[in-house]
């Protein structure tokens, strides 16, 4: 399978702070990868670097056959919309919702790219099948939703486009265990033909045996990798 993402020698951070150190990572089409690591070790920064949202970055990020990285010292977010239009769906940590917009407007905003906008009705239907509780809440402003519903909106917004790469940052964070499992299940259901997904997660138990690879992250570097086979083996033992 062809490569969706090829990160080579990436360093990134904010101001004087260097969070990611010389990191290499390759993701192939069809892969669902778990990214595991403690708080503050660079999972979110890695996602932000791919989206061009860090304060500065250096190194190569080839996304979908195009260089989107390079050295940059200023202007976080300046090229983000172009990278997103290349087919990146970032479902950020802490949801990053628009507090005054309704659920429906959020889903519309997820389909902001020109091609997706025209078919946003069908896309909304697809997301609502995945997250049924949102169906009665379409006209409600998100500031009145519960934490679990907000997470569904945030992830649903990411699923409105046909992305090449889905980046989901801590989908179960701060949710009741049962709801967290439900959200994770929805992410695992998404069809990945021709695209790939990285799920950053602290709760390894939620990922084990259900993703193709688990990569550990420690102090801004990737540490160790467990394939699907080995994680299944460990589970049986």
């Amino acid at each position, binding site marked *: 399978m062809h490569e969706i993402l090829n990160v080579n020698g990436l360093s990134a951070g904010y101001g004087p702070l260097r969070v990611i150190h010389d990191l290499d990572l390759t993701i192939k089409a069809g892969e669902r990868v778990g990214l595991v690591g403690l708080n503050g070790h660079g999972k979110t920064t890695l996602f932000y670097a791919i989206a061009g949202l860090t304060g500065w970055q250096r190194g190569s990020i080839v996304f979908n056959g195009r260089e989107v990285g390079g050295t940059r010292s200023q202007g976080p977010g300046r090229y983000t919309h172009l990278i997103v239009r290349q087919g990146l769906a970032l479902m950020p940590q802490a949801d990053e919702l628009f*507090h005054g917009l309704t659920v429906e407007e959020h889903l519309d905003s997820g389909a902001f790219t020109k091609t997706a906008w025209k078919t946003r009705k069908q896309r909304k239907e697809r997301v609502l099948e995945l997250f049924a509780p949102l169906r009665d809440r379409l006209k409600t402003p998100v500031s009145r939703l519960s934490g679990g519903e907000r997470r569904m909106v945030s992830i649903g917004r990411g699923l409105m486009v046909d992305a090449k790469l889905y980046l989901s940052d801590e989908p179960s964070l701060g949710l009741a265990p049962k709801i967290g499992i439900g959200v994770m299940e929805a992410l695992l259901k998404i069809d990945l033909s021709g695209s790939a997904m990285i799920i950053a997660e602290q709760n390894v138990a939620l990922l084990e045996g259900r993703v193709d690879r688990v990569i550990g992250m420690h102090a801004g570097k990737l540490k160790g990798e467990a394939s699907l086979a080995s994680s299944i083996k460990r589970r049986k033992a």
Partner: protein
Amino acid sequence: MDIEFILINGIVIACIYGLIAVAVSITWSSLGLLNLGYGFIFAFAGYGAYVTSRSLSEYPPVVLAAGVLVGAVGGVIICALIFIPLHEKPNFTVRGMVGTLAISLIGSQGLLWWFGPRNKALPEIFGRWQVEIGGTVLTSDKIGIVVCSIVMLILIVRWMRSSRRGLEIRAMMMNPHAASIVGIGIRKTGFYVMGITGAMTGLAAVLLSQTYYISPFSGITPLIKGVSIALLGGLGSVRGAVIASVILGFAESLTSTVLGGQYVLITQFLIIIAILMIRPRGIAGILDVAREQ
């Protein structure tokens, strides 16, 4: 003292300054830019309408449209000169404010140099008729000002509620960081926002020119009032700005009738200080509905 007179004047003032206040509010919350360049846009649009009325046609809709269009062009110019080069530099809030203030001052001096210090008058746009309702005389320009600004405001609010671009601007107003995550380009949106708010200021300029003359520095007072009204409304809330402009409009017309015009700014700022002391977030803080449990 004439209650009806005060009420009508208050509404007329509220309409004109409300347009500028809403423009300031939208720019601040979507672009993070406290745009003090509206003073220049105001005068620029006034002169644009004046030149059109002299050289092209005195037909009222043409003059009105010229003011709105030139205002929009002024907004786009400020966006290209200030917002685009500065918006990703550190400390953009202060730099942007200083930059737009510079545009306001330089632009006004430029108009002074080009057109000279003599005041210019626009033709009468709304004719010279009047209606009498319950013993109160409403002149054509007052009705025209109120109708035009309310129609403009409603059009803009509806456009922002229903269109793709409107969704883009509202998303930027609420969370610029998340807006870039869903693929909204800051620079392009900046041009839309500044164009539209410039058009609102242009309309305000043409409407106010029915009462006052156009001069190179005619935009400074409306700018001060627009910014202070936006501040009272909570900087960033369209509804807050509208309500604040009604409050301050009545305050202004009451003060100028009872005490005299020179006290207008004093009472206005006293009201603003009093409200902001009790409600630090301005009127928007009162309007916000917390999550119902």
